[in-house]
């Protein structure tokens, strides 16, 4: 056999994408596995979507999904830690986690994650994975392929248009609004990420130089950057619900308070959640979404696979399925979940784009233009300091 032919054969062997081969291996290994997907379980629509994902992957790839419903994502992190603590480096109980931000940072730093694996997923071709994309940076922490995106989150407020006419136009305006409507607004406890995000959203607008927030918070830059925030908050707090002495545990409880008529405004990390909640009978028909003028914080929700996951291949199959344009369109459907897709429209073919264009709309579903610009998440250390500082200032 002439050497050139051998070389050509070898080249051909390797040219048939290695990726495809290993992906086929992954699919084979995944068949029959049950993926324990640890995901916050407080939202029935998300739970139903996860159940649907399980039905699909089970029918298509023989991978079933069981959702482990968490009150707080940190529970799953702790579980992996205690497994590592006990030396259980294989066959772990957590296969996949819905994760981002501080939990991701903690797991990545502690070496508790499997990967990088995102580039191995065939459907990653539809993602914008350029270094500055929201898919590549999670709260300023580089993703490095250790977690795979699945839904887009953007901070929004909602209000009951039957109760109030004009919601505040900026974060600063919340102080006057609350003074005029004492006891009718609150935010989740800052130890919950939604409460923390509310403080960050205000910080970005009020801080003298927002670019500082992209660097880690230090003793040197923290006080100056946050002084206007605390001044604002001290003015706001006395007029909050329960005079600022008690706070709802998370955004779901807060939404319930709005439905109960105890408060007039709530917040969410999902612009479609208000329309979804109306359809579910959890908010009045008159609820609407608004954002402050300067735009709001946005980020991406990811799934990650623990280093000791028992069903790693199955988890990869599920992560890949989540990125399928068909799945993403189904997810963005307001009648299903209404979460915005993470795919890059420019990378989709015409058929896929048509599916997205044909999705139904609803009165409480904002269009992308009315959501304003998307602001970058501050470095994760700001959230840590803010919540700790808040606890120190206001816990008696």
């Amino acid at each position, binding site marked *: 056999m002439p050497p050139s032919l051998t070389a050509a054969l070898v080249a051909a062997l390797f040219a048939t994408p290695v990726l495809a081969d290993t992906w086929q291996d992954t699919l084979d290994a995944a068949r029959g596995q049950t993926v324990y997907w640890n995901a916050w379980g407080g939202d029935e629509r998300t*739970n139903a979507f996860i159940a649907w994902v399980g039905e699909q992957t089970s029918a298509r790839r023989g991978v079933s999904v069981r959702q482990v419903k968490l009150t*707080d994502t*940190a529970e799953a992190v*702790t579980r992996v830690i205690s497994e590592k*603590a006990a030396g259980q480096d294989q066959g772990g*109980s957590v296969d996949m986690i819905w994760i981002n931000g501080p939990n991701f940072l903690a797991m990545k730093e502690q070496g508790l994650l499997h990967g990088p694996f995102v580039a191995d997923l065939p459907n990653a071709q539809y993602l914008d994975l350029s270094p500055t994309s929201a898919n590549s940076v999670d709260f300023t922490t580089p993703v490095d392929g250790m977690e795979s995106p699945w839904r887009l989150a953007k901070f929004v407020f909602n209000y009951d248009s039957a109760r109030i006419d004009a919601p505040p136009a900026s974060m600063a305006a919340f102080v006057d609004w609350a003074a005029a409507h004492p006891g009718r607004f609150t935010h989740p406890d800052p130890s919950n990420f939604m409460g923390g995000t509310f403080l960050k959203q205000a910080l970005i607008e009020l801080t003298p130089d927002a670019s500082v927030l992209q660097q880690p918070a230090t003793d040197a830059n923290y006080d100056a950057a946050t002084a206007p925030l605390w001044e604002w908050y001290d003015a706001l707090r006395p007029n909050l619900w329960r005079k600022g002495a008690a706070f709802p545990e998370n955004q779901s*409880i807060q939404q319930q308070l709005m439905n109960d008529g*105890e408060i007039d405004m709530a917040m969410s990390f999902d612009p479609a959640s208000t329309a979804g*909640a109306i359809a579910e009978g959890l908010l009045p028909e008159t609820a609407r979404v608004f954002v402050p003028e300067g735009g709001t914080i946005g980020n991406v929700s990811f799934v990650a696979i623990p280093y000791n996951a028992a069903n790693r291949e199955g988890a990869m199959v599920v992560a890949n399925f989540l990125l399928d344009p068909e799945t993403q369109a189904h997810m963005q459907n307001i009648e299903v979940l209404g979460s915005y897709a993470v795919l890059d429209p420019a990378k989709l073919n015409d058929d896929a784009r048509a599916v997205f264009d044909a999705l139904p709309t609803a009165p409480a579903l904002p269009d992308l233009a009315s959501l304003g610009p998307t602001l970058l998440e501050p470095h994760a250390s700001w959230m840590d300091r803010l919540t700790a500082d808040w606890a120190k200032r206001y816990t*008696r």
Partner: protein
Amino acid sequence: MRPRDGRGLRLVVLAVLVLGLLGPIAAGLGQTGRAAFGVMPVLGAVDPGLGPWRELSAIPGLWTSMKLTLWTGLAATLLSLMLAVGFCAVAHERMSNSAAARWLTPFLAAPHAAMAIGLAFVLAPSGWIARLLAPLMGWGNPPDLTIVNDPWGIALILGLMVKEVPFLLLVMLSALTQIPLRQNMAAGRMLGYGRGLVWMKIIAPQVWPLIRLPVMVVLAYALSTVDMGLILGPSNPPVLAVLLTRLFSDPEIARILPASAGALMQGLLVAAAFALLWLGERTMRRLGLWWVRGGGRGSSAEPLLRAATALVMALFAIGTLAMLSLVVWSLAWRWPWPAPVPQSWSLKAWGSPGAGWAHALGNTLLLAGATTAISLTLAIAWLEGEDRARRGRAAWAEALIYLPLLVPQIAFLYGLNILFLRLGISGGHIAVIWAQALFVFPYVMITLSDPWRALDPRLTRAAASLGAGPWRRLFAVKLPVLAMPILTAAAIGIAVSVAQYLPTLFMGAGRVATLTTEAVTLSSGSDRRVTGVYASLQAGLPLAAYAAAFLIPALLHRKRAAMKGASA
């Protein structure tokens, strides 16, 4: 029968208890203790020190949190005790014990979490009571009052009382059968004491030693409840057990160390509360003696008794409303403020069992069945062992039974989980069954002990004289005759198993989803309708078990009047 009879049986029971019950608690406490002093090699923490304690004490609000814990726990226990005594004094004459048991059953059966979820809705400023009042008071918006999650823990105290008063009542009613109540009362009245004073001066001192341990169980529970504290308790800061549960699941992994220190602190708090109880008992004994000797006969206690009775009835009413609200919510579609009943109804929350509750129900049934079967077997073996040795129970044995109920769960469960992980059984059903059985067994044992000892000895003697051996006497005579109390103990076992939150959460690695874990998780969501489904099922299951415990013997023994159940 010689005392050596049944020695093998007793040894087996003792071995199972030491390895299965004492061992895990000690090992769990040991792990927690190591971590509390900074030793947890997997986290790279190997040098013992006081670091975790320093970190713990630096947590904002920790001292408030501890004060709140002591306050809510002591207040709930003392108030429950006082109300139960007062109610008992008035009601015991008008009600047979079995009628009272039937009456109290729904409150005993409802798990703490379900009750808390219902109460949170009933009591909230936008809740059921407020909605009923709104048209009368002219409220357009719900009043801005902190009622649930209030910083003083009043809602938590109330919630605990709704659950603990019925428990103490039941315990007290059974204790009253062991003292010569009628004679004491007659003698007291004849000497010119009012009914209330006879209770306080003569009956209560006799009842107290019989209910001291159950009161301690209530106290330990009230000081360390997680699910009730989470749903009804203060939020900023919460009670210690809630704060610790959050610390244990902090993304910052090293927080496990201060959390462990806090878990020991929780143990110390309970110990301190026990010491207070003991001091109180000593003081009361002194003062009481002086008071009794004074011989005052004023009948001023009567209004107090009446007030206590009224308060107990109010508690029952609120508890009933809470349980009812769960069912109503599970059938509602839109129920906004200020509608007193839902605007629209739907079976949707019940409609998709496949998506959730069927699985949780299956797990709950499996765990309840297994833990109850194990606990019953062990309890019967123990009691039979005592019978064969023909001796009573040593004090250490009694303490052993109560131990799991007196040590706060959080103090040893996390440590125990690490042990289970090493054994490779964490996250599975076996680990959860084991952990739950630690708490199911004591209740089953306590429930079964009295009826077992009250069994007419002539029955077994007659069987023996007819030539039946010990095993045949057990299976052919004792167990059938004791069917009713055994089924009651089983029902209590099921109720306790269904209600377990922390053991299921920690040992099951969250993968063993039960009605309780799902209901508590859902209570942090926004859909009361789905929560209502889980909480209704959670409360309905133990209730069904109690109903079965009443009905099965009645059917089984329908031709034997004395065994139909009225006897228990």
